[in-house]
Each structure stands twice: as C-alpha cells, then as structure tokens.
C-alpha cells in the first residue's frame, strides 16, 4: 500500500465518520478498511460507537454496501448508522437544454409518439394522431391531432405549430378543446401555453415576452 490513505476517519459528537475516497478502486477501499480495523483493534473495542460512512461521489449497489457492513460488523461495538453518497451532481448543460428530439414524418390517425424532452416535428399531426412530450412540442407543419406537452406536470411547456387546428391540446393536466374554448388557425405561426391555469393561444412573436431567456443572444 502506498502512503496515500483512502479512508479518513473523523470523530464527531455522534460517533465516527468514515470518509471514503471516491476516485480509487472499490477493492482498494475494502482492503484499507480491513487494514485500518486490524491496526486499531483497541480503539474499536469498548462501548458502542456510531459509524457514518460517506462515499463521496461514488454510487454503490446494495451488495457492495453490504460488503462494507460485513467488514465493520467484525468489530462488535461498531454500529453503522448510514452509508451515504453525495447526491449526483446535475450536469448544468442538461438543465438549460433538455434533449430536443427531431422527427420527420406524419403522425397519422391511431399513431402515438411519446418523447422525453422537447419534440420538433417536421411534418403534420393528423386527426386521431397523438404526441406526448415531457417538454415542449413544436410542429413545423399542420397540427390537426392532439398534443400533450409537459406530461410530467411542467406548466411552462408550450405547443407551437405552423398551422394550429388541433382536436385537443393538453399542457400538464389542463385539457383544452378548440374551437369551443378558443378559435384560431391564423395564417401565422402560433403557440399554446398556460396563462393562470387556462389554455391560451398567441402569436409566435409573443413567446419571447413570456420566455425572456430564449432570446438572450441577439448578436452585436
């Protein structure tokens, strides 16, 4: 074993914290854990000590956690309180731009497309066809069927179409049925969104007022 120690033990009020390195091999950790326990046999006997194990960024399966537990269990007085990893760090780029799926073709009657993220459809949605998306839906064509945007409850999702003549639109859990609730099919591109819990339709050019972040970079 080299000089570098992969396990740091800290004492806190409640007991002991084992900080496990998250870059090295898992086997190395187990070896060192064994070694540490053997070395400090005296310290680890006596009254019950609560152990908190911190894995850092390392994510472990239940069976690997069990291997750690079984090593520590050799010392009768060590009581494992928790084995924790840091919450997985969210990739910041993902947050800004959820995946945009691009699809070409016509969604015909009886066909259903489901996507996680936004969808850009180059084609039409015919009556009887359905799109379900967790994000926005942009239809570069005629929207004559049904679209459900923000299926997982995203009330900020929008549905945009070159020709807006849907049979039904849904955003999050709001269902809207044109033309009873609104009429449209103007010659310009439109989008549907939720305004205070009800479906509304507006020209595409109004979108940047609603979503300022979309148009941050306008060149020089």
């Amino acid at each position: 074993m080299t000089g570098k120690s992969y396990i740091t033990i800290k004492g806190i009020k409640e007991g002991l914290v084992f900080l496990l390195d998250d870059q090295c091999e898992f086997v190395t950790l187990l070896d060192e854990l064994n070694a540490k326990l053997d070395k400090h046999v005296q310290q680890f006997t006596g009254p019950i000590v609560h152990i908190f194990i911190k894995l850092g960024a390392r994510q472990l399966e239940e069976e690997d956690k069990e291997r750690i537990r079984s090593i520590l269990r050799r010392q009768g007085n060590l009581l494992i309180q928790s084995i924790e990893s840091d919450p997985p760090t969210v990739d910041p780029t993902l947050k800004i731009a959820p995946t945009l799926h691009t699809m070409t073709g016509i969604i015909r009657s009886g066909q259903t497309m489901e996507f996680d993220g936004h969808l850009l459809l180059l084609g039409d949605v015919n009556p009887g066809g359905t799109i379900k998306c967790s994000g926005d839906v942009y239809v570069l064509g005629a929207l004559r069927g049904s679209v459900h945007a923000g299926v997982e409850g995203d009330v900020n999702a929008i549905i945009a179409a070159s020709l807006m003549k849907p049979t039904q639109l849904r955003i999050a859990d709001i269902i809207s049925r044109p033309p009873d609730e609104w009429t449209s099919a103007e010659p310009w591109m439109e989008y549907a969104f939720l305004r205070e819990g009800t479906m509304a339709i507006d020209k595409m050019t109004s979108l940047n007022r609603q979503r300022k972040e979309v148009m941050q970079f306008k060149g020089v």
Partner: protein
Amino acid sequence: MGEAIVVTSGKGGVGKTTTSANLGTALAIFGKKVCMVDTDIGLRNLDVVMGLENRIIYDLIDVAEGRCRVNQALIKDKRFDELYMLPAAQTKDKNDISPEQVRQIIESLKPDFDYIIIDCPAGIEQGFRNAIAGASQAIVVTTPENAAVRDADRVIGLLEKSNFPSPKLVINRIRPNMMKSGDMLEIDDICQVLAIDLIGIIPDDEYVIKAANSGEPTVMNVDSRAAIAYRNIARRILGETVPLSQMDEKSGMFRKVKKFLGMG
C-alpha cells in the same frame, strides 16, 4: 413477374370492391393479364360485382388448405380472356387463413399475370393483414367524408409501417356541385391531410350502382363518367401521364347542349 396491388380503405362501403373490379377490368381492356383476388372471406362480393358468382367451384381457402391447385380455383372472366379472379370463401372467416398463406398464393400467381388486384376487406384486423401480405403496392380508396378520410389516414399509417413506401389515393364518389358549394370536403384538403399521391378521382355516378347489380363492371360503359375515371386510373398504373379529369366538365357540356337547343 406481375405486380400485386392491394385495394384497401379501412372504412367499409367506400368502394373497394367496385374499384378492384373496375381497375382489374380496365387493365384487361388495355391488354394486360390480370388476376383479381377477393380476400374478404365470409363476405365475398367481388364475384357478384363481376357477375361470376355462379362459376365458383373452389375458393381461396380451398387453395390455402390444399384442396385444389390455384389454377383450379381461378375463374376466367366472361368478357376477357386474360382476366381471372380468385374468389373468397363464403362460409369461413378471416382467421381461417394466415398472411403467410395469402403471400404464398399471390407469389404463385405472379409469374402468370401482369397485375394482381387484391380486394381487401374493411377494417384493420386479420382480414387487412391477410390482404396486404402479398402486395407490393397499395391503393387507398376514400370518399370525401371526414370519417372515411380519418380511416384512410389510419390505414396509410399501417401501410407505411408494413413497408408500403408510397400508397396511392383514390377519392371516390365525388359530387362536383356539392364540392363547389363547400358542403363536401375538397380534393385539395383531403390530399393535404393524407399527404400521399393522388392516382384518381371518381365522380359519383348512378350507373356504378346499376352496373354492380347487373354484374357488369362500370368501365365497360364508355358513356359513364366513372368508367372514364377508372380507365384513367388504369392508364396511370400503366405509367401514362393522364391529367385529372375536370369534375364539372359534364355540366359544361350540358350547358353547351342546352344553349344549342335554346334552353340555356
């Protein structure tokens, strides 16, 4: 090697059998060797429309189950030497034959014919799957009604999924004056929604009903506007470029005659 074309629609009563019978006959008129196959098992009609019902000895199921050879089941048309039909069984149902069996029968017909026209039953279930199994090209028949267009759209979706890259569209039973007044779906609107190639438009013609009842295909009567339209579709299948007939042509002719007689 022949080309197998399935005539389908999804919705019933839009004119699949009439279209099959007339296209088959029209192709025979143009000198092609044609076999029409009725896959509407249990509700066979093509033989009735063709006036060949009383000549049936064996049917599609008999061929599939090996009770006879394909050639024994083929019925020769009474008008053309090169026109044959393979009738459906009337007493069985769609589940008594598999798509694979139909495919094999169609394959066995291909070497002997230029065109094989397959008449598909209504619906999208087993009967539909049987009918499209052997075909390499599809003609979708619709009428200018929302329900028929919706079903045609569904069928086109299923055809595209089953590797029919470009089905062709026939719009049947057009009433030019209703279309003009906006009471009927426009041809352009239908084509825009369905987004496939239009291969023909057939005007609503009372003669079609009369012809079907007398077992004489409409295309035999050159005075019928529907007959001309069906012949035009056949010519387009043969690769000719034929412009779509103007739907109000005849009323124009009428007006001319009326004017000539001093009635206009």
